[in-house]
């Protein structure tokens, strides 16, 4: 059967109905489209821990007793609140790119004397270009993707810093005072008492952030990555028989409907899983949720 399908697909004009659709949905471009779903999952897998790290750093800085560091942490948390997030996405992608090239330029071409900004251009020496002009295509793509990941991590780091900062403040103060009374240094109090206890308070917020992160993944398109939105536009557009074996009218609506359904399923599954985790974590806790569970059992 498999051989038959492959054989039949070589001459699509003769096909109709379901076999046409099977052949159509397995063209090389469609396989790239399915691969792009992998890109989205990869982005999530890399960004979530990176954003947590940024967030933890930000929350620690905001709590710091060194004033400038505390300002920096608070500023980082505050800045994303007032401004649309896609403005940040668009800003950071160019800013990071230029920042990296600027640093490489300073290191690799110290004796360059022309100004970097000439009118409307940003010019660095050849050796400082990122990625290098002669590097293969996959390096360009990987570089673009890493910039996107870093951008996501910075923006979502600020969100998670806010959640973690709140969670750190929600830990009962008596716990910290007790630790101090036992003679622990501030550093020990932080790592041994505060951090292990804060997760219960942080989890609802972090779960919410995860949902937000899922819904932010289509913005990859704006950062110039060939993601599912890119392919849906590309594949859905009307095709004439002159350029393709599979001509069809404008199907972009159906492609985006498929994406809509994909995201709905994804968020629904996440909701169910997060719900389970939350139920598992509240078991036996001295919170309202834990109390409700105890009552339900008896």
């Amino acid at each position: 059967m498999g051989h038959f399908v492959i054989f039949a697909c070589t001459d699509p004009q003769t096909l109709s109905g379901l076999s046409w659709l099977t052949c159509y949905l397995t063209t090389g471009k469609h396989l790239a489209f399915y691969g792009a779903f992998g890109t989205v999952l990869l982005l999530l897998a890399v960004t979530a821990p990176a954003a947590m790290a940024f967030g933890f750093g930000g929350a620690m800085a905001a709590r710091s007793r060194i004033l400038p560091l505390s300002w920096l942490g608070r500023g980082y948390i505050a800045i994303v609140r007032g401004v649309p997030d896609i403005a940040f996405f668009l800003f950071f992608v160019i800013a990071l790119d230029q920042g990296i090239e600027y640093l490489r330029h300073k290191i690799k071409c110290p004796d360059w004397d022309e100004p970097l900004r000439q009118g409307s251009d940003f010019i660095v020496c050849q050796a400082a270009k990122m990625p290098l002009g002669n590097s293969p295509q996959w390096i360009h793509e990987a570089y673009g993707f890493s910039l996107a990941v870093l951008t996501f991590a910075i923006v979502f780091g600020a969100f998670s810093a806010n959640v973690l900062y709140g969670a750190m403040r929600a830990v009962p103060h008596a716990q910290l005072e007790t630790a101090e009374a036992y003679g622990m240094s501030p550093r020990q109090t932080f790592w041994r008492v505060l951090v292990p206890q804060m997760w219960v308070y942080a989890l609802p917020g972090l779960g919410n952030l995860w949902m937000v992160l899922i819904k932010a993944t289509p913005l990859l398109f704006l950062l110039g990555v060939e993601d599912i939105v890119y392919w849906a536009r590309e594949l859905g557009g009307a095709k004439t028989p002159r350029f393709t074996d599979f001509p069809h009218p404008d199907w972009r609506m159906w492609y985006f409907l498929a994406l809509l359904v994909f995201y709905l399923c994804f968020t629904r599954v996440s909701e169910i899983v997060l719900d389970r985790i939350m139920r598992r974590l509240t078991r036996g806790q001295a919170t309202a949720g834990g109390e409700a569970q105890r009552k339900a059992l008896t």
Partner: protein
Amino acid sequence: MSCWETVQAYGLRSLGIGERLLPRNDFTLCEQFTLIGSGMIWNVYFGLFALVSGFMLATALAVAKANPNPWLRKPAEWFIFIFRGSPLFIQFFFGYFLFLSLKSVHPFFDAFTSAWLGALVVLFFNTSAYSAEIFYGALHSIPKGDTEAADAYGMSGWPRFKRVIWPTMLRLAWPAYTNEAIFLFHATTLVFFTGFPALQQRGDALYYASYFADKTFNPFVPYPILAMYFIMLTLVIIGVFGLINRRLNKHLPQNQIRKIRLRPNLIR
């Protein structure tokens, strides 16, 4: 061109009034401030109209979702789930291509393929779903005493809803609803980055900001300008909603009024 002349030429550019050609080189700070500010007209337009119209649908949806009758409850639940469970970015794309397909069926849908109506419809549905969820939560936390008091006075049906349940619901939901409003205005920046075309380069604030960033290859000027405008807009929203919050809680002692706290929890 002096700065005042620039303002005259480009102040209403986003509506198609004034100079036709956008500046192409030697961009001045004044031009960037003026054009990005001009684009803000669209952001305010989308946000304001979606918010006001969405408020009514959201109330209806919340009441429907709280209704025991499954014929009312299920559609409301599905509506809210669909619009809250998927990215707004994809909703815009889908909406635009849906309207494009409908346009070939009936000329009635012509206007829906342009941003001023089509994107507004998508935003209207989206904010309705998010606000409905907030209102639904508030409906659930109305103190039992309030409804019991209404019953004791012999109120039922519409007067009970209008005089007791609805005001209490609004009062409880208001801090969360303020956040919804802020993030709705932020979400309006997505419009011209999805399918909806910016006819004759009449775009919103982010459209012009990215235009400048692309032309000058320098993101460090236009985006901070955009950020400044949006922070100002956010402050205005907080101010207005704060006033309404005070009005809603007029009968309570001053120290019991819940402060509106900003929570950054929504990208859509």
